[in-house]
């Protein structure tokens, strides 16, 4: 198994308060990691650190060979999506290719093909010319997943990808993500509040607690640990 991402004793703070301290874990290619934790436990800070848009207080993040932090396919938490924004699905998906494009001013034919393939992969190819404000919540999330796929070389980072979706769209989204992991060999990191589904699709769990110690291990180990009782208890 090739290592794709390693966090080595990282610490970070938010607005002067320490939210992550001495956190270490390693992911291999093909892993599916779910990050669980209460609000304010440092999940968003961890994501920003992984993406390289926030500096660490200490420790380091080591990416797998040939991988840069900007090659992570990111799906942001979409509390701030503007419903009124005029943009076609193609424009949005294509913007996922910006990281790999470097300093060139225009997209190449290859990048456009990549965007089309990503849309086909997620079943939204027929929506390419539609405005994103006309899409349903589920379609919008698939559009953002397609954009993340364009940016991703091997690693997807999804921040609460199913929040706000109806149950059918949620199931569809989980199906797509699992497929990308199992069939296409994408390594997936998913932040979620949905413990039950997370335990089902993930093969690694990272649970951040407001206290200093966090949990990292397989779902089986997690269910057996004392940290899980609180979370699973809440959901049942």
């Amino acid at each position, binding site marked *: 198994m090739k290592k794709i991402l390693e966090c080595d004793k990282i610490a970070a703070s938010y607005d002067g308060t320490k939210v992550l301290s001495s956190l270490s874990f390693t992911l291999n290619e093909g892993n599916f990691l779910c990050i669980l934790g209460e609000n304010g436990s440092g999940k968003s800070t961890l994501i920003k650190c992984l*993406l390289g*848009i926030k500096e660490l207080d200490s420790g380091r993040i080591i990416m797998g060979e040939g991988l*840069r932090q*900007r090659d*992570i396919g*990111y799906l*942001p938490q979409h509390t701030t*999506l*503007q419903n*009124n*924004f*005029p*943009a*076609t699905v193609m*424009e*949005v998906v*294509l*913007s*996922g290719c*910006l*990281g790999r*494009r470097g300093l060139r*001013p*225009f*997209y190449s034919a290859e990048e456009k093909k990549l965007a089309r393939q990503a849309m086909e992969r997620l079943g939204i190819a027929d929506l390419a010319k*539609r*405005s994103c*404000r*006309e899409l349903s919540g589920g379609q919008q999330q698939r559009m953002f997943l397609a*954009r993340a796929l364009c*940016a991703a070389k091997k690693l997807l980072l999804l921040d609460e990808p199913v929040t706000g979706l109806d149950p059918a769209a949620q199931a569809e989204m989980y199906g797509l993500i699992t497929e990308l992991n199992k069939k296409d060999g994408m390594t997936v990191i998913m932040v979620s509040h949905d413990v039950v589904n997370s335990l089902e699709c993930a093969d690694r769990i990272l649970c951040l607690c407001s206290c200093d110690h966090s949990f990292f291990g397989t779902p089986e180990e997690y269910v057996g640990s004392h940290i899980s009782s609180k979370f699973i208890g809440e959901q049942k």
Partner: protein
Amino acid sequence: MNENIRLMFTPEFFRAILLPALIGGIAITICSSLLGVTLVLKKYSMIGDGLSHIGYGALSVAAVMNLAPLKVALPVVIIAAFILLRLSESSKLSGDSAIAFFSTTALAVGILVSSKAGLTNDVSHYMFGSILAMSKSDVILSVVLAVIVILAFILLYDRIFSVTFDESFARATGVNSGIYNMVFAVLTAVTVVLGMMMMGSLLISSLIVIPTLTAMRLCSSFKGVVLVSGAVSVASFLIGIMISLLFNTAPGASIVIVNTAFFLLFSMLERVVRRSGRS
């Protein structure tokens, strides 16, 4: 009215007054409409308005102290643009109240200073603009600014889209959104100050906001909105200034009214398109 038309077509009037106004005006309306697309979509519409009031304050102070108006107003408004953007990003003082706070204070300072010095007449130019009195250097500066803005929108188009649409994703793909916001602040500040001399402090924000809102009625793509808002803005300017010459109305206000008319027209067209799309 006939007298006006005849006057308009004398070569002297055309060369000395109308041509600079047209060149400067087209340059400024292109800048304000293009920058307006990102400002409106990032919910920074009020920044243009706030900056123009701050600019008014700065110009009044400059007039009273007998300094070159642009040399005072430009740096002040650029700094103000930085501060307002910062405030809009941080959550401590919410952006819109910060803008209201700064702009009304600056406006009050401007009025106080100019009325005390008895300069209300001069300074009222900046309140309502005087497009037919643009100096050569103002026109040149406007054209340079327009070239920079247009080049930025061609070469950095996809990055501008990404930063406008979803800043957190843009940052994750390695786009330094902070630099883009700063560049936008500077360009907006310069546009506002120049636009203010043309349209007046009270009307410049309409040049930033209305073309984008108009284009959004009919366009579903970002590219469409950028192109249509530029075109509508230039068309409104040309029609507006013709109306003002023919009917002897205030140029700035005429241009804004034409902009609003376009907005209403596009809104009606949108309804027609939607209805026919449904049936």
